[in-house]
């Protein structure tokens, strides 16, 4: 390996065996990942509150800290201090175990999510496959929570979570496969490396089908995070609070944190798969930054920014849309997203066969990018079409038309 792609390699050197690297990874990464998850949780919850507030003509939290930035900390302290209640007829062991399982299921996903060039816990050869595999672990925690609560509403939440898992995993896997077929690798770093250079090298702009794949992935990711319009397992107005109805205090906080961490994971994966990972999309800029520590820092900033933008879109969606029904969720996942995902997979590979995208080729040891773009046409047309579409929708919408006229 010419460049140390993981921090662990960097610390231990190349000579270490993979098991040593494995143990080292745990030791080196456990603390920063946990800290990062907490940070993601705090920031996302604050963002959620502010975004929802501003969408709804409200101020949101303003008291604790500047613009309520520390409100989440205060809430966390409150939740820590709350009494730990376990319902009398609950399955006590599972009840206590479920939040940990959900949180662990989320946090293992961070193992293959890169935070920047070289900032990745483990660049597995099968990173994408690993993500698909561990993505459903959180759902197991949710199912356990709903069962253990011994509450019928919670049980319905569990059942819905199980239904949701088997529904969204298929289109999500198809979106993964579409990108994997383009990239020819399952490694997250390998996928990012193929998107270096200009913005048109991003997988989103490779061909028209990857747009569809992105949308399919994003919808499935919403379902994976149990975010509206797929918040069926906790569906507040239907199931009281769904699977966490009986949870309070710190156990509830862990579920909460897991949800927001999951939002970050899926958004970071979207950034890696479709939006160029840690590359800015401007070839000279990337070249000027170069590798090394500067590249690490800038790259980390870029990918975290991209991820948080996608997280914000998730929030924006949540505060706009009503919740869909369980059968509609299954209909959407299995009868809309899945056919379209298959179409995308086939279409994308056929497109690549006849109209290969810019030559990003594996040349000897590393990836070399050809920045002369054929894909720029796709990118330009796609962007123009998107803008035109949004404009036409706005024009067709009375209240928006009135607002833009005035």
């Amino acid at each position, binding site marked *: 390996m010419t460049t140390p792609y993981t921090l662990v390699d960097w610390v231990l050197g190349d000579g270490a065996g993979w098991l040593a690297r494995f143990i080292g990874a745990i030791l080196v990464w456990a603390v920063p990942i946990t800290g990062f998850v907490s940070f993601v949780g705090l920031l996302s919850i604050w963002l959620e509150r502010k975004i929802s507030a501003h969408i709804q003509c409200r101020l949101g939290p303003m008291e604790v800290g500047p613009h309520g930035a520390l409100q989440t900390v205060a809430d966390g302290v409150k939740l820590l201090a709350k009494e730990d209640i376990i319902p009398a007829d609950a399955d006590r062991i599972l009840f206590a175990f479920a939040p940990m399982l959900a949180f662990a299921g989320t946090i293992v996903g961070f193992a293959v999510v890169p935070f920047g060039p070289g900032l990745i816990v483990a660049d597995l050869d099968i990173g994408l496959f690993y993500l698909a595999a561990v993505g459903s672990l959180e759902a197991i925690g949710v199912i356990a929570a709903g069962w253990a609560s011994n509450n019928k509403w919670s049980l319905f939440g569990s059942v819905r979570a199980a239904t949701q898992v088997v529904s969204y995993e298929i289109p999500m896997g198809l979106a993964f496969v579409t990108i994997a077929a383009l990239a020819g690798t399952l490694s997250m770093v390998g996928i990012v490396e193929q998107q270096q250079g200009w913005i048109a090298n991003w997988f989103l702009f490779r061909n028209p089908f990857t747009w569809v794949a992105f949308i399919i992935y994003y919808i499935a990711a919403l379902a994976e995070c149990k975010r509206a319009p797929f918040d069926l397992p906790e569906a507040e107005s239907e199931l009281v609070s769904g699977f966490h109805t009986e949870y309070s205090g710190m156990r509830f906080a862990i579920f909460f944190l897991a949800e927001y961490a999951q939002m970050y994971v899926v958004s970071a994966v979207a950034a890696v798969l479709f939006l160029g990972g840690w590359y800015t999309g401007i070839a000279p800029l990337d070249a000027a930054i170069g590798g090394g520590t500067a590249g690490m820092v800038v790259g980390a900033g870029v990918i975290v920014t991209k991820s948080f933008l996608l997280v914000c879109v998730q929030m924006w969606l949540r505060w*706009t849309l*009503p919740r*869909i*029904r369980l059968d509609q969720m299954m209909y959407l996942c299995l009868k809309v997203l899945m056919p379209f995902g298959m179409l995308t997979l086939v279409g994308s590979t056929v497109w690549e066969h006849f109209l290969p995208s810019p030559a990003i080729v594996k040349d000897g040891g590393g990836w070399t990018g050809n920045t002369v773009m054929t894909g720029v046409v796709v990118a330009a047309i796609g962007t123009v079409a998107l803008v035109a579409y949004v404009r036409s929708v706005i024009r067709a919408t009375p209240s928006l038309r009135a607002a833009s006229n005035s």
Partner: protein
Amino acid sequence: MNAPHTNSPEAAPTSDVRSEEMLLNMGPQHPSTHGVFRVVIRTDGEIVLDSESHVGYLHRCFEKHCESVSFLQSVLYTDRLDYLTSMGNNLAFSMAVERLYPDLKIPERAEHIRVICAELNRIASHLLAIGTYGMDIGAITPFLYCFRDREKILSIFESICGQRLNYNYVRPGGVAYDIDDSMIAAIKDFCGYFRPKAQEYDDLLSNNDIFVRRTANVGVLPKDLAISYGVTGPSLRGSGLKRDLRRDAPYSIYDRFKFDIPVGTGEKGTLGDCYDRYMVRVREMIESLKIVEQAVAQIPDGPFKSEQLKGKLRPPKGESFVRVENSRGELGFYVISDGKDVAARVKCRAPSFHNISLLSDISKGCMIADMVAIIGSLDIVMGEVDR
């Protein structure tokens, strides 16, 4: 409700796969039962096989109360019936008391103020119904938008009568206080403000495909079933029957205003589904706005309460029944007076009570999520159901 599994056959048409049945208590503490209302649901998975409504958690002996407090004091108890349409309740009870007097003349100005307040309150009530309905379906933002606009109406009411919810404003013989120019200006402002805002609810909810799919073809209430249960108000009009007391049996001065009566057309699904009931409310707000605009334009000067009703109310012996088109349906008050200053008997015909009674009929075979949608579309207020 330990019902034996006898009447399940036609109950689960949408279910192909069998699983275990479960009894589920929805309420009395549930976010979507709109108050302390309890439905016992027998479910097969998510499919509702059967449901049974239990009411009475909010019973306050309103009718008995009226036999022990004076007529004037009874008015403010009517506030608490349908606490979202207190003006309409006040109006109905006041009219029932007024009808006990043989030749009572209500001043023109008072009548106009009553209509303005009742219609504004209808808008406020429908706003809340639409907003909470959106929240039942899972959209929280329209709820906040509706509340933002409802607050404007409540502020107008507060400037008129000092309270935001329990107005105690319309009294036998007129209204409690006059309204002045600044209040009329505020009402006119609101009329101008509200029309474009009403489109926002359409863009966010009524036209939204997720919302339409959640509500269309759900909880279909056929016309004859609605009539047989005595359903009134938007829930009845959603089934396509053009019945509105303001037009069919005009009271107060409603015969002077031009307005339409929106009815359900089954535009997105079946006639009489949740979407129709919802859309009737959305459209009624605009019709109410029309009435308010006309009433504000022609409001005359003069006294705001009748000079004939001075001092303690002692209606002559007799009985009266008055019904008005409240925002949830036909609200009726039956008052018997035996010449004293307290009523001998008061009976309230509460629309929500009749509307909720058919819940188990139209919710068979739906999903739990649909149950929430159906309860929301019937728009009940438990203060009125339980009285």
